[in-house]
């Protein structure tokens, strides 16, 4: 466990010393802040607009961090051959991957925390009261991003950084739309389309479940039981994808 935490800490240090992260963060905060411009165009519901745009920004920039930094964490080690000196120490390949995942998880948590703080303050300034349910929505966004991080790590164990980024973004798009696609295919699709969508629906994560933005922004009721099940589903999905990534990584030759 100590080695996993050491690798996680180093992965976190690596991302913190990466200038790209700061660019993403500054841009995200600027975007959240600029949502106030739209407020001036609307009559009433200012807080709703800011919360809506803010949560969308957090998801989008969190996705950038998970995908573009996530794929590099493993593939850069292989490309620059820094992995040789690491795996020649008493480090198991599973420890390496889990450590990298935790490190990026921590990076995401810190960044989402900063963006959440920015959004909370902005919403408070406009509405004059705290809206803690935003944190719940961001918590589930974090879980969603952890699933995508696990996918980014899985793809980067066997593919190039560019392809890994494309695959991970595809998982995000399909994962967000899978329920809608299922509905569409069941109503209008032929048997082959239904079968394909069925496979995708059960194979890829149902990421729409993690999107609480609409419920939070519109103050709709949330079922705690559904939220608990969604959280368990997310954790199990991450564990499953990481297990596949470890199985692939164990067999890999580092030439």
């Amino acid at each position: 466990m100590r080695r996993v935490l050491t690798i996680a800490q180093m992965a976190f240090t690596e991302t913190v010393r990466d200038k790209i992260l700061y660019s993403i963060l500054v841009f995200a905060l600027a975007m959240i802040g600029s949502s106030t411009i739209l407020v001036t165009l609307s009559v009433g519901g200012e807080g709703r607009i800011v919360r809506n745009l803010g949560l969308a920004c957090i998801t989008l920039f969190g996705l950038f961090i998970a995908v573009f930094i996530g794929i590099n964490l493993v593939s850069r080690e292989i490309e620059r051959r820094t992995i040789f000196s690491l795996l020649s120490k008493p480090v198991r390949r599973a420890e390496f991957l889990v450590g990298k995942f935790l490190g990026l998880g921590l990076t995401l948590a810190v960044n989402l925390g900063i963006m959440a703080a920015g959004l909370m303050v902005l919403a408070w300034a406009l509405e004059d009261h705290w809206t803690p349910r935003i944190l719940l929505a961001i918590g589930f966004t974090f879980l969603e991003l952890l699933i995508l991080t696990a996918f980014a790590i899985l793809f980067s164990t066997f593919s190039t950084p560019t392809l890994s980024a494309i695959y991970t973004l595809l998982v995000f798009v399909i994962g967000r739309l899978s329920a809608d696609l299922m509905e569409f295919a069941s109503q209008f699709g032929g048997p082959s389309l239904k079968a394909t969508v069925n496979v995708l629906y059960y194979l890829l994560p149902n990421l729409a479940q993690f999107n609480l933005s609409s419920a939070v922004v519109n103050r709709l009721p949330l079922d705690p039981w559904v939220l608990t099940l969604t959280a368990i589903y997310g954790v199990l999905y991450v564990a499953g994808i990481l297990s596949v990534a470890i199985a692939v990584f164990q067999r890999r030759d580092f030439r």
Partner: protein
Amino acid sequence: MEPVIQIGGLCKDYRVGFWGRRVTVLRDLTLAVQAGETFGYLGPNGAGKSTTIKLLLGLIQPTAGDGQVLGFSLGDPVARRHIGFLPENPSFYEYLTGEEFLTYCGRLLGMRRGRLREQTPALLAEVGLDRAARQQIRKYSKGMVQRLGLAQALLGDPKLLILDEPTSGLDPIGRKEVRDLILRQRAAGRTVFFSTHILPDVEMICDRVGILVGGRLVRSGSMRTLLGEELESIEVTATSIPAETLAAVERLALSPPLVQGNHVMVRLPGEAELEIALFILVGAKSRILSVVPQRRSLESIFLEANREAQA
């Protein structure tokens, strides 16, 4: 006593290209390295030296064959606790300082904080990086990165050092320092397995060598066995040799004498010829300046092995 490295029938194939064409990199490699030995692993570029090392560390899986390192199966993480490894053309995390990198490595080795604090500056000083300890690795020269690689390999007092081309990219002073460092490790009782194609380094510091050509081990043995006890020739240099004496000595020589001003050098095939030549030269009141026995060089063995393997 059990060998530190023991491998038998090790083979490695890679699949290359779109169609996955099979390329054999290592063929039926059988090798043993004893405790306390300094083993030089020689071979031209692409012979399979780095592949062997990566197999020993578990960075790649063998296609066939098996082996043990320090009594553990190839690639066992427990064995790696006692192995110090320097990769060929090493590359480390550029955003870290040398000191931070060694601390990271030490923590992965499970070293205690106190021991790590003690060893890190000592090792950085040993490889001549004490002044650059707090400098980011991205600002290091190639030689400095190589030295840092040696320092991380020595961290945690490993029983076995595996060094892949440790002197490549170093200037003559750096090469000598690395040679001295390896000799110090040998004196400390560590087993050193190192690959190189720089033959003078091997001749100076190795107990045993293995020569790898085209993925096959074509020669292996102690330096004495490989170089042989027998003389290749004896070179005698003398002055003031009368013409008729020189003609008599020339008949004993392997090749025509080399004349440079008053100095004459003759290459004689063996001790019997040397005795006769000395008798003649002394009789003619010539002045003998030197008698130098010439043994086979590692270079000639290496080139011969390479030629044979390619034939």
